[in-house]
């Protein structure tokens, strides 16, 4: 007891202060949570989705065209189950938006955890985070309940220091513009690509849409641009279209499809087959904002 209890006590105190500081870090997607968890998102429009939301939709462009405030809650490397958990946390700490721009694609309705789990490290002391996310992510009990263990186990000392040192912003209202050159090599190695569906993810998605409708929040589905080569390799494109259309019809959600934009054949606007680079994202965001304005989704621009 003399050995264990004081150690745990000291570690708990260190963990509390370290996590407070680490929450401001821009390492490992931690930055994407700060505004949300501190109730600093004051937005009429939020963007939901995976990396194609996070890297494709520039909120500043939507703000300037729609005359409102937009925030991007897109999650890099995360499938729908994680996105919905982020949405729940967003609603707990921030006001209700008027419109949700929900990006959809062939990977959205998968159900998986475990990628980039470090982004949740600073929030292990937050009960809502524990309930929504930590209870489902594959953290070991040691990581969940022993103070500082998760940092010590997964990071080297340099990174533990860098977490406190790297506080410059890399995200703009949740959006990350990527400036990388085109690389289609990895995708070309793939023989085919499939729309993958998981029954649990479908159920969660359905419940999410029902809750959004019950909350009187408008929603629009958006197929964001991808490089045209993807169309040739997609095996079950019609199944994907039919699935999302069935949800759209059920909840009266319009679908905006940007996969046929002229930019989709221009490799200077993509950094890989699935993702626009910063310049491409700005062009797409402009088109999206113009269409949202024209369709009059928001009360203040009708």
């Amino acid at each position, binding site marked *: 007891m003399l*050995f264990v209890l004081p*150690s745990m006590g000291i570690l708990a105190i260190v963990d509390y202060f370290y996590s407070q500081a680490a929450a401001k870090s821009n390492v490992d997607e931690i930055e994407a949570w700060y505004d949300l968890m501190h109730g600093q998102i004051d937005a009429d429009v939020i963007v939901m989705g995976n990396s194609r939301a996070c890297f494709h939709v520039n909120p500043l462009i939507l703000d300037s065209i729609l005359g409102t405030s937009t925030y991007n809650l897109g999650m890099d490397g995360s499938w729908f189950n994680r996105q919905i958990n982020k949405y729940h946390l967003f609603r707990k700490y921030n006001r209700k938006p008027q419109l949700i721009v929900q990006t959809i694609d062939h990977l959205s309705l998968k159900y998986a955890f475990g990628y980039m789990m470090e982004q949740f490290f600073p929030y292990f002391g937050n009960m809502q985070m524990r309930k929504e996310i930590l209870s489902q992510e594959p953290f*070991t*009990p*040691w990581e969940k*309940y022993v103070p500082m*263990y998760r940092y*010590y*186990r997964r990071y080297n000392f340099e990174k533990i220091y860098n977490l406190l040192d790297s506080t410059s912003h890399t995200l703009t209202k949740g959006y990350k513009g990527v400036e990388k050159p085109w690389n289609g090599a990895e995708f070309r190695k793939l023989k085919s690509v499939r729309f993958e569906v998981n029954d649990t993810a479908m159920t969660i998605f359905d419940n999410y849409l029902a809750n959004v409708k019950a909350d009187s929040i408008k929603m629009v589905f958006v197929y964001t641009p991808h490089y045209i080569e993807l169309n040739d390799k997609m095996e079950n494109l019609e199944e994907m279209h039919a699935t999302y259309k069935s949800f759209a019809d059920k909840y009266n959600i319009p679908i905006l499809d940007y996969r046929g934009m002229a930019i989709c054949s221009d490799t200077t606007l993509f950094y890989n087959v699935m993702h626009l680079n910063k310049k491409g994202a700005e062009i797409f965001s402009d088109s999206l904002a113009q269409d949202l304005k024209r369709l009059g989704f928001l009360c203040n621009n009708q």
Partner: protein
Amino acid sequence: MLFNSFQFAIFLPTVFLLYWLVFRGRRWQNLLIVIASYVFYGWWIWRMLFLIALTSFCSYVAGLLIEHYEGQRRRQQLVSAANIVVNLFILGVFKYYNFFVENLDALLGSMGWHLDWVTMNFILPVGISFYTFQALSYSIDVYQKKLPATHDIIEFFAYISFFPQLVAGPIERATNLLPQFHRSRTFDYAKAVDGLRQMLWGFFKKLIIADNCATVVNEYWGQYSELSGWSLFLLGVFFAIQIYSDFSGYSDIAIGCARLFGFNLMRNFNSPYFSRSIPEFWRRWHISLTTWFRDYVYFPLGGSRCDKWKIIRNVYIVWAISGLWHGANWTFVCWGLFHATLLAIYNLLGINTKYKNIVAYGKWLPNIKEVLQMSLTFFLAVIGWIIFRADNMTQAVDYLAKMFTDPLNGRMLPEEYHGYMIWGLALLLIEFVQRDKEHALQFPNIGLYKCRFVRWGIYYAILLVIAKFAGEPQSFIYFQF
């Protein structure tokens, strides 16, 4: 429930506090041990509790009947035999049923008959080989009048199910452990602290050495045909280090944990890789099992008190059974027979009883002869472990053939794994330095070790190493037995 699980980290302090602060008195403490042990064991599959309860009950009743039939030796013999048959039958069904059916099917298949429809999906209850032998030890000892039958069923159930040693030993003798349940226990601070140290060392061996070596072995064993002979030998060495660290680590945790509750379990490993001969190796490896077979199989067969060829026959019988005890696979039987052959050779040379003291006893370092002897013994043990680890005899033969005939052709193990070998060598070095101690963290009460902060510094350092470098979680190897 695994020792290296979070649940155990909650379970152990809870039981410890209840044991010393709430359940005061011998009977209440024994009851708590039974409850805690059944919770511990039932955490895996609660249905298996019926088996351990049945084994315990049969042996308990057998003890009472043997006592009841005092003066009627024939009846006592029948009761003891019946208990042995019942317990071995249970063990046989769960552990060996499919093995025998599959081999019988293979044999009859050559005549056109098939029995594959008779195989069944038995889940092997964890620890069944261990607690069955422990139960048998009791009834045989009562029959041989080495100890009286116990009339306290709680005491007996506690003896069989005692959670620190329930699933992977040491296989305790009733003459050692049962009387400890009959005595009152008082808290001994020094004993508890030393027990914790022993547990810490056990965790280090298991989580750092064994689990990291397991990563290498599990990844490359299946690719053995592509590796060079030298790499195959290294892989065998990794497995030798893995199985020692895993099993002796578990034993250290079990023994240390028992000491927290005031119990002394028998030592199970005594620096076996510093043995100068195979017979000495077997006096230092899994001591509880080898002495069990010596006392309950070898001696009743005549032991060493017969002519040389009967002695060798007895050795082969014991080691065939010992091999089979480890699992339902011909590789285990062949491993047992391999060691039986080595033991027979040492016996014929008349050097099987040499080397009772630890190597370099009273000295700092071994001499050249001792180093060569230890190297040869370790080499022979590695050969045995390769047979032991193989999935089947074909693989074992292929592996060994390639290892000896093709040392340089083929892939080498990646250099990144050489670091794990250094961990293993560091372990052996520490254990060599502390070879005359019960465990490597038994500090002498002199010099810097007297200072609490020095000792705590060592504990923290070990904990930090475990927290940072623990390998991917692997179950304890001997759980499968």
